């Protein structure tokens, strides 16, 4: 908004409105992630000091996965749905997985820790940063070492008499181990994860929804130059951390 000489303000120009929309929707630039607070039960093992990783920095094939559910528009509008989803994001996650976000909900720049359950009941500690959030969508981006390099955009739109709620993942497996894991059931598990999440979101608004899944391989090539990402693998570090639990417990007793 422009200030005038007499102290009043004149209506914002379209450029000013766009700039204001941008300033509030995008996370501020950071070179490395910083976790301000570690909630009880969370492990800040693979987030602090890490850089974000887009699909460009990942190793595996590049995938775009889109999950959609439909809710009658009279039950919820897109903006109401996104406001609720941002506010109660962890509640919609499938059992066995924890999202330790701020109690105030999802906001650009927030860093959240995650404990995910992988096949074999293995616990994996990782996290995400809220890259973007506005009234109709929000995007979480992964740090180096996460299962995949990329982002997930959650959005809602009006289509005819329905509100279409969507989660869209754009990703590459971060390293060769995760790429193998995706091929050996990881993709199925991820599809199930987001199917259950969208089903929970729809159920919150009283709708028993069927989730449509669309998977597109954007790039079949693996980026072999990125195989070294394995050194930052959250799976390896989480496993070592779990194996070291008895030793840490003994040390606590004697300290």
């Amino acid at each position: 908004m422009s200030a005038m000489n007499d102290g009043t303000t004149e209506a914002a120009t379209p450029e000013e409105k766009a700039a204001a929309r941008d300033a509030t929707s995008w996370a501020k630039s950071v070179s490395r992630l910083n976790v301000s607070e570690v909630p009880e039960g969370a492990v800040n093992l693979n987030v602090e000091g890490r850089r974000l990783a887009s699909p460009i920095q990942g190793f595996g094939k590049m995938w775009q996965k889109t999950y959609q559910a439909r809710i009658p528009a009279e039950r919820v509008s897109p903006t109401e749905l996104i406001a609720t989803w941002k506010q109660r994001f962890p509640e919609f996650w499938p059992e066995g997985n924890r999202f330790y976000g701020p109690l105030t909900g999802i906001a650009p720049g927030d860093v959240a820790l995650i404990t995910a359950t992988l096949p074999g009941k293995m616990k994996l500690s990782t996290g995400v940063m809220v890259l973007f959030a506005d009234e109709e969508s929000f995007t979480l981006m992964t740090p180096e070492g996460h299962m995949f390099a990329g982002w997930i955009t959650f959005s809602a739109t009006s289509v005819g008499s329905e509100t279409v709620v969507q989660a869209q993942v754009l990703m590459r497996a971060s390293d060769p181990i995760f790429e193998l894991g995706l091929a050996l059931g990881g993709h199925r598990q991820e599809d199930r994860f987001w199917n259950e999440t969208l089903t929970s979101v729809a159920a919150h608004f009283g709708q028993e929804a069927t989730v449509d899944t669309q998977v597109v391989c954007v790039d079949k090539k693996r980026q072999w130059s990125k195989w070294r990402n394995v050194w930052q693998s959250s799976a390896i570090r989480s496993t070592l951390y779990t194996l070291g639990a008895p030793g840490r417990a003994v040390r606590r007793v004697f300290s």
Partner: protein
Amino acid sequence: MPEAATTFDVREVSETARAIDITGDVTAQSEEVLMDAYGRANAEGVAAIVLNFSGLDYMNSGGIGLLVTVLVRAQRQHQRVLAYGLSEHYRQIFELTRLDDAVGIHDSEDEALAAARAS
């Protein structure tokens, strides 16, 4: 939110480079027009795609995702992708999303073309 008129105009800026002039908003809804523009720019012998963001009004995370898809398509054709005309804000977004690892960012079209020639 109503979509602003978004256009992607393709120009031949040299024998081996095409510029895509982006005007308006770049969001997930821009997919069809952006991919169509890339299809027109992707002529035989083109080694560089120069994205001109001088007319960009707004871009959200869906738009950034589209740029990654364009980048992948260009890399398949062994083409470089360069950009100019980004505001300071969007330069920071390119850094934040690490798109700048793969997209060369320049201050002007001349600089972008010089970089394309040098590679």
